[in-house]
């Protein structure tokens, strides 16, 4: 494996795997005009059928494998297991891969249920900067420190007016930070696409949603759509 002891100048060999997905996670990594040009100089997309027709050598190794989408079949599991052997860092990227995302309750499995992952990157889609930070950390031989806190704090840090106080059903109080409160920053309530933060208080959130006039039948769907684990939830 050629992960940890890389010389500083070799590009980072990244493999992208698409399972049951919308391609949004890959596109987030590929966002940005000139910034992407710079990224393509230090990230080699060694397996990326969306952007490259270059043949992938069956024996080749990867510094990092990013998996997008949920797992459907035995063939998917086999692919993940074989990729696991070819990389020191296998990361579930996005809500579908991490916890099912919009596919929750459809009989598919999340990536961490079938293969050991080194990290998950939340979001539907994940933020570009978080994916670039991940690649940068792996290029230096490690993983980024996990993010802490909730979206609410990112609003406060930027003095974004609170949407909940204005009666809008924003999931900022339970949702993992890391997007710089992208949606509330544009006065759109957070839909919770980055999943629940560890310190989330779902009981309190249910009450807040009720106060905003969300019918109780709709609260669970809104609150749990992008949550990982908890497959007992009857969604």
């Amino acid at each position, binding site marked *: 494996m050629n992960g940890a002891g890389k010389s500083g100048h070799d590009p980072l060999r990244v493999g992208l795997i*698409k*399972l*049951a*997905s*919308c*391609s*949004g996670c890959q*596109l*987030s990594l*590929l*966002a*940005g*005009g*000139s910034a*992407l*040009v710079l990224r*393509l*100089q230090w990230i*080699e*997309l060694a397996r*990326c*059928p*969306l*952007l*490259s*027709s*270059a043949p992938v050598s069956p024996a080749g190794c990867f510094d990092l494998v990013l998996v997008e*989408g949920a797992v*459907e*079949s035995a063939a*998917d599991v086999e692919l993940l297991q074989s990729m696991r052997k070819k990389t020191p860092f296998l990361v579930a990227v996005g809500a579908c891969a991490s916890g099912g*995302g*919009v*596919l929750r309750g*459809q009989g598919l499995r999340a990536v961490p249920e079938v293969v050991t992952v080194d990290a998950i990157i939340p979001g*539907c*889609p994940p933020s570009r900067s978080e994916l670039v930070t991940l690649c940068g950390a792996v290029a230096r031989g490690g993983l980024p420190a996990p993010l802490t806190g909730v979206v609410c704090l990112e609003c406060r840090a930027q003095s974004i007016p609170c949407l909940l106080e204005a009666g809008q059903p924003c999931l900022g109080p339970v949702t993992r930070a890391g997007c710089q409160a*992208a*949606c509330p920053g*544009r*006065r*759109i*309530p957070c*839909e919770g*696409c980055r999943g629940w933060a560890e310190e989330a208080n779902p009981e309190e959130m249910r009450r807040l949603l009720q106060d905003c006039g969300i019918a109780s*039948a*709709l609260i669970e*769907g*809104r609150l749990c*759509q992008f949550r990982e684990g908890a497959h007992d939830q009857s969604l």
Partner: protein
Amino acid sequence: MTNRYELLTRVEGAGEVQLQIDAGRLVAVRVAMLDIPRGFDRLVRGRHFSEVPRLVSRVCAICSAAHRVAAARALEQALGVSVPPAASALRELLLLGALIESHALHLFLLVYPDMHRCDSVAELLAIAPEQVKAGLELRQLGCLIQEVAGGRAIHPPNVEVGGVVAWPDQNELEEVFKQLCHWQGRWPALQGLFTDGNAYPSSHPVEALDLMVANGQLWHDGAKWPLADYAGILQGVDVDYSHARQYRHNGSPLLAGALARARLMAGEADNGLGVFAQCAAQAREIGEAIDSSIAWFAGNYDARQLSVPVAPRAGFGVAALEAPRGTLLHAYHLAADGTVVDAEIITPTAINQLAMESHLSSDLMGEKADDGLSAWAAQIVRAFDPCISCAVHQIRS
């Protein structure tokens, strides 16, 4: 007789071209869409109408704005509401951004490498850095418009049933306007990259029934049909080798997308480009979308009225719009409590499947099965700009 299965690359999603070879020549060809079916039509059943835009925008990242707007419009029809003018206007700007982004991605990142016999845009950077940078910056303009109008470049949360949530900040709109003006001057010099016939292999004219939606009617075969008659025009068939339902009209292939729009609206000839006229038509549409976006800023919008209240009721609604890749249709049956009883989503790539196969036959039948054949076949499929996540969203009946 041997079969060759060639995985498609530089298209959205997983698929393959299946080539049947006899005595060293191509005798039959099929296109299989192989993405994992995610069953969005089943997934939305039983969900409340207000949850549907958030769910169906995830059918596809590149087409997420189009799905979100189409779903909202179909549901608004089912629920008997019309959205305020400012909300419709902002959705239009969002769709213009989506078109610029999708076409720029297709032309510069997926098609352009073929013109220099490269495998990828990364390789191309060494050969044509200025053009690649321009293409990526243009795509970024499309992303920026969607961020500003839709709240996010992918899965834009600003579109909800009943209208939009928020009007963009003035300074963000000004930035968009500034960049659009810049691109209005810059694009004409780049457009030629994709309209020049020497850039492509030779190709026959695409023989298919052109389809598009205009003013709420399906425009097809020289006539306009009410949208409600869509099932009579778009006849779906499941085939065993593809995960996506194929659509046809009385057995004939249909064509949706930039080329179909150009042929229907301008009666435009293909200028000898065959299927690659699709790329030329997309290039022209980018210029038109930049102009239309600039014209959008001349409008007066009452940003105080962005949505209307929506109450549940039983009903049926169908809406279609021209997504970047062609006609996209959403239809919903709602129960009295506002939950979805049944849904149908028909995507341009599913509509184009049969045309892809018949055009591959028309360009390649009888060709020698050498190493170049697979790449040539892939280039033809790529010109159709398929979006396989979109096509394979349905459960099979």
